[in-house]
């Protein structure tokens, strides 16, 4: 799973370079096609990051005593 998710980041980076749309006219959902693509791309990243968080532990599990609240802010 880790390899898949990391590979996905590489694919996402490659997909960012939408040279095939570079000089294209046309609209998608009312937006110029290049703008629509990158908006959709950004929303895809939300999904991928959710998968990263779900399946991969962030680095550095809290050490003993770490992460305890000191009357912290809500949220």
């Amino acid at each position, binding site marked *: 799973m880790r390899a898949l998710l990391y590979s996905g*980041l590489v694919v*996402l*980076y490659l997909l*960012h*370079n*939408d*040279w095939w*749309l*570079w*000089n*294209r*006219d046309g*609209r998608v959902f*009312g*937006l*110029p096609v*290049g*703008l629509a693509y*990158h*908006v959709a*791309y*950004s*929303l895809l*990243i*939300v999904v991928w*990051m*959710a998968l*990263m*968080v779900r399946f991969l532990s*962030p*680095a*550095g*599990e*809290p*050490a003993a005593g*770490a*992460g305890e*609240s*000191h*009357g*912290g*802010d*809500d*949220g």
Partner: protein
Amino acid sequence: MTLAIIVIYLLVVLVVGLLSHRLSSNSGEGFFVADRSIGPFVLLMTLFGTNMSSFAILGASAQAYHLGIGVFSLMASSTALVVPVLIFFIGTRVWELGKRHGFLTQIQYFRERWQSEALAVVLFVVLVALLIPYLLIGVMGGGITLHQITGGQVPEWVGSLAVSAVVVVYVCVGGMRGTAWVNTLQTLVFMTLGAVTMIVVLRSFGGLGAALDLVAERRPELLRESAAFRPLQLLSYTFIPLCVGMFPQVFGQWLSARSVAAFRVPVIFYPLCVVLVWMPSVVLGVLGNIDFPDLVGPQANSVLIQLIAERTPQMLAGLLGAGVFAAIMSSLDSQALSLSTMFTQDIMRRYVFGQQMSQARQVLSGRLFVAAVLAVTFGLSLILKRSIFGLAMWSLTGFAGLLPVLLAALFWRRSTAVGAIAAVATVVSLWLYFFWRGWGNPGYSVLDSGVMSVTVIFAASSLALVVGSLLSRPPEREIVETFVS
């Protein structure tokens, strides 16, 4: 009416910042990193708000005015990918190291990681020098906003002074917790009002389709990405958002998180926030060509505000102007606080008071430096008039070039202080060279290839770090084991 709404908004911001003071301990850790207690939602809002400055609002719309929709591709979507990845892999590690060792600044971390006073001093100077232009665009943006939103009645210096003064007050009183609370408010304000602005302005044109049809008649190239960049430029622009990893203000916010779990919400939702802010800025910047077709260079810094003043009811214009102020101040406060933290902890406490600085004195020093930094920046704003986007790019390029230093500190056991200093020296040298080459040439790229100078600087600093490390004595194993898992 417009001015009254903005004044009321600034008062609300002040109250929120002042109230935050009640929850902070009166200690250095309370003032500088909010007692390491910031939860996930506030962490998202403050991280995002910090990075969405007048650059993302005024600068983006100005750049889109000139170059079209491709500005979103260049900056927004690359930011949407790079920043969450940085938070996920780097932010969480920084938090854990900060919690374990009690760091309050980047400089403390780098000094301890490589046991080098020389590196700490060099980095301090460079980070401060790079942050000043970023502060400047915030103060400038405040002046431009108030001047334009009031139809030119209020001089620019008044707006610049207003944002500087308000930020000084609530940062001095509330420290990191004050900035976090205010940033949460301000981020919600400018995200909401940005969307409202876009909807109201589009409706005044008869809808998105009708507005874009008008642009297509007059400036069709703005609706294609090719107006904004060449392919290699798009590829190399993804290096720019790497700057976030070395921002002192972001480092401080990472240290302020309550737990590693608090990073989950920012990692997931940061890209959504990018879309909600950048899309209105870019679209409205492009539409500015309809009403204001003759803006040249930095004149476009005010195109968003001019559109708001032209096409929205007066009361809404005031609210929207407040939204722009929100974006500006949400960056200015954390930048000023981070400089203050660095000065207090890394200079005053380290070299003047020899670690014997009382908590009260640390807080006082922090407050005085916030006021001094913003006073100097306000003074600079009176004499320097440059493109907001251009100033930001140079600042961001320098920070991005320094990221290899942080990556090596976190992940490469063999890295040394010599390597890190070599990397910093390389960044400074190349930054000055490319700044000189690009002076007066907004479209400058390396050898006119489309490749941004940030790519070359990043690669060169990485190489210098590797070579310098391998040619110097390996670090002590015990120290490395403490920092690199």
